[in-house]
């Protein structure tokens, strides 16, 4: 279940946000607090999640306190899908 969520997001981040398609992002790697995902790209991530999983992440949730790695993001998405 979690892999089904993590894999496409990791791919999206590497290809579209970082523009490094071969980059592997581990599930516990900090994304926001590390500065890996630029604030200008947070919206792209939210829109991708909405289009792919039908789950909304609000703009007030686009911060490291709400999720900071793929595991946490996947948990957030799963909790809203059900």
């Amino acid at each position, binding site marked *: 279940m979690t892999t089904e969520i993590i894999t496409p997001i990791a791919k999206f981040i590497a290809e579209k946000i970082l*523009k*490094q398609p*071969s*980059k592997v992002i581990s599930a516990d790697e900090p994304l*926001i*607090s*590390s*500065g890996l995902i*630029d*604030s*200008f790209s*947070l*919206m*792209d991530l*939210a*829109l991708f999640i909405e289009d792919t999983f039908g789950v909304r992440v609000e*703009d*007030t949730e*686009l911060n*490291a306190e709400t999720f900071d790695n793929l595991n946490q993001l996947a948990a957030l998405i799963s909790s809203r899908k059900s």
Partner: protein
Amino acid sequence: MTTLPNLLQRSYHESPDKTSIILQHAGQADKPLTYRDLIHGANRFALTYAREGIKPGEVVILILQHGEDLVYAFWGAILHGAIPSIMPFLTEKLAPEKYRADLSSLISITKPTTIVTYPEFEAEVRGALTEGDSVKNVILTDTIEAETEPNFETLQGLKSSPEAITVLQHSSGTTGLQKGVALSHRAVLNQLNAYSETLRIDPASDVIVSWLPLYHDMGFIACFLMPVLLRIPLVNMSPFDWVRAPYKLHQAVSQYKGTLTWLPNFAYNFCAHKIRERNLEGVDLSTWRAIINCSEPVHVESHDLFHGKFSAYGLKKSALQTCYAMAENVFAVTQSPLDGTPVVDVIDRETFMTQRLATSPVADSPSMQMTSSGHPLPNVKIRIVDEAFNDLPNRSVGEIAVQSDCMLTEYFNRPDATEAAIKDGWYLTGDYGYIAGGELYVSGRKKDLIIVGGKNVYPQDLESLASEVDGVHKGRVVAFGMYDEEEGTEEVVIIAEAESTIPSEQEAIADAIRKHVTKSSAIALRHVKVVDEKWILKTSSGKTARSANKEKFLKELGEV
């Protein structure tokens, strides 16, 4: 001649109940501040500065986020006659040690006596202080005096001379010496009078809506000092909220009948690409009479994108305007006339590139589009000069020189920099441009400078940062900007020669460069290319030839 504190006093007496600023915070109700609220809040800080023994003319650095504290701390310093300067707050993108180093460097040049910040941030600020430096007070926002009726007889700022320095704007260099642009009351007020006349401002009907940060001239002057001092209501949201929800700008314009906004070029593309229709339901943009493109090279395609996306919501094409501005002239130098759309000058590319002349296009040869930045303000004179400071004719490209009654007093504590920038009373901008039909076309920059999302970055700073990464050949790094049509701004490319030729090791080095440069400069890198030795082209004198390397990079990209 009046001063900033005089204007505040007048507003307090004449329109205490008028709304000055509506502060917006994501997830909170909007907070309107009347002039009474504003000046009462500012007075609390002015009393605190007096309590701490801060004298008029001393520099007070404000390290605060968007919100009431920042507004009050700033205007409090003005009422007290101290010189406030707003600094960016630490973000996740920047390494704290780098932030401290920048702050220490700024302290050593600007010599502030006081820093205002939050209790939670005190340790960070103290980490930047050194034994024997100029800072005597770190004032925390939980130690501010209680609210009382302001006493304009005792407020020191009311005694300021119009020639005194009232504010400092720090330039946004990534490393190296920071320059504080020192502006007098007279300069600020001359700019606001001239600019508001050009924009035909009517405080009874105009409303400025802004998400711009206050540590940058566009947000600071056009979207903070001007509205507060001229009593134009301001709707102010945080840049952090806007970047996560750009539609909030449009919603605020609709809700408050906003009329004026300033944006850097990238923001037009950002809004056009990222705002979804569902966030625009019921939004009416018909009151928006000017959205002024400033602080980055203007691309007319960005205006078209923006208009194409939002015309369905009542956005008028004539609202899309341009301006050429700099902190050294307080703000605006030129402004496009608000009754039409900015002129687009189509010129011959070849003549422009080789002879530095903007001439009519020739059939069958490539042309290029230049967007006008408009006419000089009524109080501003412009010259286009060659290297020897001789005037150039119309349509010849040269350096833009500016003279006005709203120029900087000096670069604060930097007589060397002041002397280098001002020649015979003319400020040499370092920008290239030409004049045609009385309008200014800005075409490039004298020094290599990359403007990413409205932020200035010097390539040599990025190159020296990348050189610090293990495995990179010291000094064999080149950085340059590349315009990205999709994003509407320049993106940073770094090419570095590695000691290793193994692809996996080169990839690891590329990763390390990204991390290190971003954390040290708060600039995200779009392309990092690690190459074998001898890839980078140098001039005969051993300097890195940025444009030649850029050409080589683009050629290789095209071949892939």
